[in-house]
């Protein structure tokens, strides 16, 4: 592994080693570029992961203080935990379920296609599906996504069988075990899935793609990567002529270090990325770096989500096998006749008994709840995930008084559901329930959103500098050598799970950065 000097100002510093940062770091290293990768969390291996929901939660989660506000239900149920994401090498790809779906063509042009939706700050992406297709292709190959590149689908588990049966009875056409970045057979040095059922707890077999098991080792093999763990970026510094120059971070002993840089790429996930820019305010950039548009932290999206669980006369044992084992895509179209714009996906989901107790109906108690839990092994479940509307007031800001362990203001996450989100969730609850009722469900439970797992849009891409934070390459409009490299770039959220698109954008961004460095433009 490389070991660059703190004063080496020829390196690219990438902040965060998750889907965006881990991929970008590897792609740059493959091109021979020197990379310092700063990761706030520790590095764990497959042997360290535990098949235990609460223990794993304590091991992997980002638990630094955060606050919430707004009318969303998460602010009431999980006031100190707006998002369920990771602080560890590999970021949230250690947690993720593996669903890997391309965005649809119209989802890059929502302002044009959906029109002027009141209260929403919709905007067309400055890129199209066609621009991304070759990179989607590379990402799927890299991640070993099933049902692409000749890779077979995964076998469906019991939870999938129930969903499949109901979906077919309801007349849904597109239902299968989905495109998953989990090996259905050995590939790329990773084994086939053992149907362990703890995909959210870090896959102990390595069948699931993550930047931890694939990108970071590949980057290390080039000899170009200097990975610093337990290294939390605190501030980005800049010089007088409009360029960023270095990153101030706290190392594993809590000492502050300043790493000089030629280029800085921020990929801390959509809460920490804008927070870092806001915390980097200076005399020249009083509202935070790259924020003269005032858009940093705004348009926070978290997907319309909800779950439906249902119990049956006979056992299901949904927890056996892949957590996200199948999908119905029929509702992901844009059909405003349903009473909302945009669409949603229906994906099987299972929680173990400990998490089911915490999430099925947060705050509930008494006989009704206990009876629902009694049905656990007769239960099937699905997650509903759809496009939510960006809104200027859905926003990450710095807290006025609360600070973290480094003395920096903590982020507050303010969120209100848009009327379109509410109408979509209502439709999704009805359809999800209908799927299970078609299979003879005895009870159906509509479960409210979990803390956000998909965090998007807080430094969005825009054609015009006044509408967003970065351009179509993720390069900030204001500082040519400062890049946004995670889901914060998303102009809008689409119905699909975001990670494949985050990885795709990172591969494309690496090409651009290498080209610009080659031309000495940055």
């Amino acid at each position, binding site marked *: 592994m490389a070991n660059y000097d703190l004063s080496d100002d020829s390196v690219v510093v990438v902040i965060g080693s998750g889907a965006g940062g881990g991929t970008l770091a590897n792609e740059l290293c493959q091109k021979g570029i020197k990379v310092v990768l700063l990761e706030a969390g520790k590095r764990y291996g497959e042997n360290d992961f535990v098949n235990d929901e609460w223990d794993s939660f304590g091991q992997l989660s980002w*638990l630094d203080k955060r606050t919430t506000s707004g009318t969303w239900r998460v602010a009431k149920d999980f006031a100190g935990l707006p998002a369920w994401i990771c602080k560890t090498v590999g970021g949230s790809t250690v947690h993720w379920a593996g669903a890997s779906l391309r965005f649809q063509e119209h989802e890059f042009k929502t302002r044009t296609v959906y029109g002027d939706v009141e209260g929403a700050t919709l905007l067309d992406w400055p890129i199209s599906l066609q621009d991304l297709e070759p990179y989607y292709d590379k990402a799927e190959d890299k991640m070993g996504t099933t049902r692409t590149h000749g890779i077979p689908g995964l076998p469906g588990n019991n939870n999938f069988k129930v969903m499949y049966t109901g979906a077919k009875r309801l007349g849904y056409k597109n*239902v*299968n075990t989905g495109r998953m970045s989990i090996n259905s057979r050995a590939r790329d040095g990773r084994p086939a899935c053992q149907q362990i059922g703890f995909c959210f707890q870090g896959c102990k077999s390595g069948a699931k793609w993550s930047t931890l098991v694939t990108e970071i080792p590949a980057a290390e093999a080039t000899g170009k990567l200097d990975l610093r763990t337990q290294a939390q970026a605190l501030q980005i510094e800049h010089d007088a002529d409009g360029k960023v120059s270095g990153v101030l971070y706290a190392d594993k002993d809590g000492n502050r270090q300043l790493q000089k840089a030629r280029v800085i790429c921020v990929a801390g996930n959509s809460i920490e990325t804008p927070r870092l820019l806001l915390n980097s305010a200076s005399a020249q950039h009083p509202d935070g770096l790259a924020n003269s548009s005032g858009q940093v932290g705004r348009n926070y999206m978290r997907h319309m989500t909800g779950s439906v669980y249902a119990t049956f006369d006979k056992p299901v044992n949904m927890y*056996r096998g892949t957590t996200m084992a199948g999908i119905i895509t029929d509702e992901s179209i844009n059909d405003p006749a349903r009473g909302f714009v945009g669409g949603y996906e229906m994906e099987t989901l299972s929680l173990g008994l400990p998490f089911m107790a915490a999430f099925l109906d947060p705050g509930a108690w008494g006989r009704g709840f206990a009876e629902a839990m009694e049905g656990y092994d007769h239960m099937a479940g699905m997650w509903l995930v759809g496009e939510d509307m960006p809104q200027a007031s859905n926003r990450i800001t710095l807290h006025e008084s609360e600070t973290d362990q480094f003395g920096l203001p903590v982020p507050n996450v303010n969120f209100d559901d848009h009327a379109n989100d509410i109408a979509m969730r209502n439709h999704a609850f009805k359809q999800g329930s209908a799927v299970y009722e078609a299979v003879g469900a005895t009870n159906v439970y509509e479960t409210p959103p979990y803390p956000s797992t998909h965090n998007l849009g807080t430094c969005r891409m825009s054609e015009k500098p006044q509408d967003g934070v970065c351009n179509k390459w993720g390069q900030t409009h204001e500082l040519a050598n400062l890049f946004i490299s995670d889901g914060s770039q998303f102009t809008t959220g689409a119905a699909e799970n975001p990670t494949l698109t985050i990885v795709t954008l990172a591969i494309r961004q690496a090409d651009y950065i290498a080209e610009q460095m080659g031309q000495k433009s940055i």
Partner: protein
Amino acid sequence: MSAKGMNRRQFLQSSSLAAGATVAATSGAAAQGMGLKALDDHSGRTLLKMTRDLYPHDTLADLYYMVVVEVLDAEAAGNDDTARLIKDGVAKLDGAMGVNFVDLSEGNRLAVLEAMESDPFFQKVRGTTVVALYNDPLVWRHFGYEGPSFEYGGYIDRGFDDLRWVGEPSADASPKAG
């Protein structure tokens, strides 16, 4: 700055997922009878009734609810605020109808609890119970949850797709394993 300890405590205070981390930290709480350190016997018995009323599974023995009471006791032993919260809370339960909570009828106990839902004591006990009760591997068996599976080779050969009461999906939708 001892960052870690601080984060954890702050987190515990601010999240209703808090109890999860606490329980993980106090794992191994003895399940055989209550050996209370901080709480008196009456408080222990009151909490036992209350935790059962909160999450009533009639076929689960008291033993499993005692595990929860012991988690609360351990917290009270290490934190004066919690100890006071519980002591005052038990007094409120007893005072609500002028008859000790443990002697109230089930209907009356529920009425007392419902009236206390927004009380920090109630929230503390409820939050701890919903995590500690359902995080106990012995309780998992009662619910048919099999827990860790890696050491048994996952479910690939142990019934991940053994459901037979619906038809088989098409091979296209769900290819065979391997």
